[in-house]
């Protein structure tokens, strides 16, 4: 591998993952708006155009359905396209291609055709952006059979999940935590992790209640656990990592020990993944639960203007408030 163990911001860990994947397999292509000469609006593809050229790092027309749709055709030809959707809110023009074509082509062709496409989406809020730049659409894609979704929260996962998503023969949506892009962490590109990308991880062991989070909410959950610890409450934090499939056995195992679960995500609570997780936990851990499963997330409003987003997004106080409520039972 080209890189050695180092400390990288999440964005650069993804860059390294893309570069190493492209060096390892010349069928890997990058496509999207401004991904070439500019290196992407978040600079995640920085340097790749210079190294691999415009046949492999393709500045496309500004048309998301066309980007994902042509990626389908390239995948039919045996390529492994990595598509960048510039911002979460811009994925919706491609929603048809993703849900009716990318998700269903393998099934439609009875397994004869695979679409190893990666759709990278910088997602989530908290960056003071204008409308459509702060969304968390994971539930819409998790609801669609045929798609896989990864949500890295650390630099190490950002690197390896990028590699593993590209290696997967299934289409994978990579939800990249855009407000954490510049948070640094250790990356070891030389040793493939033992943990599968499709498994959840216990990010912090604890005994009194379980916090489940992913992507941009994981640091918040860890911060909340630290704050609670100062008050003598020992929280376990689980990083879901994969949102489709969800690794729920790891959650069940935790809840059976702690008896309490709080789910934190930026997406609206109504119809969000937290609801699905709560239902499953109720089915599998009913007799172990000491309190109702609580969710902390967005409200049933469109994503608000930036000067209000601090009240919309889960924060330390809202998470700790939910923890207090499950502990009160």
């Amino acid at each position: 591998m080209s890189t050695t163990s180092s400390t990288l911001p999440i964005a650069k860990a993804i860059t390294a993952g893309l570069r190493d994947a492209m060096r390892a397999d010349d069928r890997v292509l990058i496509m999207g708006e401004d991904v070439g000469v500019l290196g992407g609006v978040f600079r995640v593809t920085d340097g790749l155009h210079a190294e691999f050229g415009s046949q492999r790092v393709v500045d496309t027309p500004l048309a998301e359905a066309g980007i994902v749709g042509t990626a389908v055709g390239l995948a039919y030809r045996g390529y492994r396209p990595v598509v960048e959707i510039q911002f979460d809110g811009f994925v919706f023009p491609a929603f048809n291609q993703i849900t009716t074509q990318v998700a269903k082509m393998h099934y439609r062709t009875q397994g004869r055709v695979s679409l190893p496409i990666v759709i990278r989406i910088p997602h989530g809020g908290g960056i003071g952006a204008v409308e459509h730049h702060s969304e968390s659409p994971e539930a819409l894609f998790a609801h669609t059979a045929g798609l896989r979704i990864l949500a890295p929260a650390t630099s190490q996962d950002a690197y390896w999940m990028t590699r593993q998503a590209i290696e997967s023969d299934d289409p994978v949506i990579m939800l990249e935590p855009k407000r954490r892009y510049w948070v640094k962490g250790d990356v070891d590109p030389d040793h493939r992790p033992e943990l599968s990308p499709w498994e959840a991880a216990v990010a912090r062991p604890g005994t009194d209640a379980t916090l489940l989070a992913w992507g941009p909410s994981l640091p918040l959950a860890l911060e909340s656990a630290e704050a609670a610890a100062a008050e003598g409450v020992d929280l376990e934090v689980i990083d879901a990592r994969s949102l489709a499939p969800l690794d729920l056995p790891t959650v069940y195992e935790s809840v059976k020990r702690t008896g309490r679960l709080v789910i934190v995500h930026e997406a609206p609570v109504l119809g969000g993944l937290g609801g699905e997780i709560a239902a499953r936990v109720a089915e599998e851990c009913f007799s172990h639960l000491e309190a109702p499963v609580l969710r902390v997330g967005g409200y049933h409003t469109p994503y608000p203007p930036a000067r209000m987003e601090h009240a919309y997004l889960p924060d330390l106080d809202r998470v700790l408030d939910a923890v207090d409520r499950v502990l009160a039972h």
Partner: protein
Amino acid sequence: MSAFSTTIPPVADQEPMTQLLAPDGTRTPHEELDAVLAGHSTASPAGAAEGDASATADPGPDLASPERLRGYYRDMVMIRAADLEATSLQRQGQLGLWASALGQEAAQIGAGHAARTQDYLVPTYREHGVAWARGIEPMRLLEMYRGISHCGWDPYELRTHPYMIVLGSQAPHAVGYAMGLQRDGLVGTGDLDSDTAVLALFGDGASSEGEVSESFTFAASFQAPVVFYTQNNQWAISVPTSVQTRVPLAQRSRGWGIPSIRVDGNDVLAVLAAVRSAMDAARAGEGPRFIEAITYRMAAHTTSDDASRYRSSEEEQQWADKDPILRLRRHLAQLDEIDETYVKACEEEAHDLAMRLHHFIHDMPDPDPVAMFDHVYAEPHPVVERDREQYLQYVAQFEDDADSTEGSGATGGGSGR
């Protein structure tokens, strides 16, 4: 004089239509397209008009030879018989739906045979003649409309995409495939047996879909070897083409810098020549082309539709007079290259095909529903495995109960883990 201008007249018929065969079968010479038909632009006859398995000896490069013309006639008779039988099977409750291509046989057989063997075709759900020309058995189409599978053939083996139902969605797939061909070095080498192009098919209704316009943009920007081919059959269910476009569709692509032609879609030779010419230009690296074939959907949109609610029988009769099969037969008769024996042999063969389809469908068992869990993902997936397991456990409860054979209606609709 307005500061705004348009060079396009605001009526939808200001575009010449290229025709090689008049409705009465008369052949009109056309210098450029006649050369294409004569095979002058071809280094090899490979892939031309291969038809189904009954085609044997090399028929030579002339795409309009009497032998080939009789072949196109037979193809159109066969596919029309299969189409009528499919409608009948739907009426008998054997198919959930059927989308008839009656009247579009020349537009489809011509386009299907214009593609070379190595080319990739990307159809909608009404391309039964194209499928026939690519060697897809009609049984595979009927299976899909019966609800046995979503696509009964191998897209790689037959170099034909699945039938696409969300209209326009297939257009960017065609362009992406063509972009892959460019990267594979299969464009513009000068070898007609390996240089490859993609034929993207869609209808006049789908021309309004955004993905079609986006595909024009991608194809033009990257000069991808793709030919967009619209069968303008005048109706998108109940909505006439005039609602889809204020200008002739053929003119639309020119705004993208994509050269285009309008041809008579009920004229198998015009279609064949135009599509062959465009595909060869695309494979040579000259970029995309667009063809509008004017034809008519003689049946309703599907077996669920009632065309009498929105169009007149006079209109239908006018188009019946332009029937593509009759037209080719008249032309062959003028050439003195068809006789009653051949016509009768085609009819008998078509009848046999219809009977085979009838028995095939009537004798077809339903699949085991557990197959619904197959191929959701290429790699193992715990949620699908768990759902399959729960379904099987649910069904197993009833296996000892001789009175209950339903096995459906599982509560809860599956379960993730």
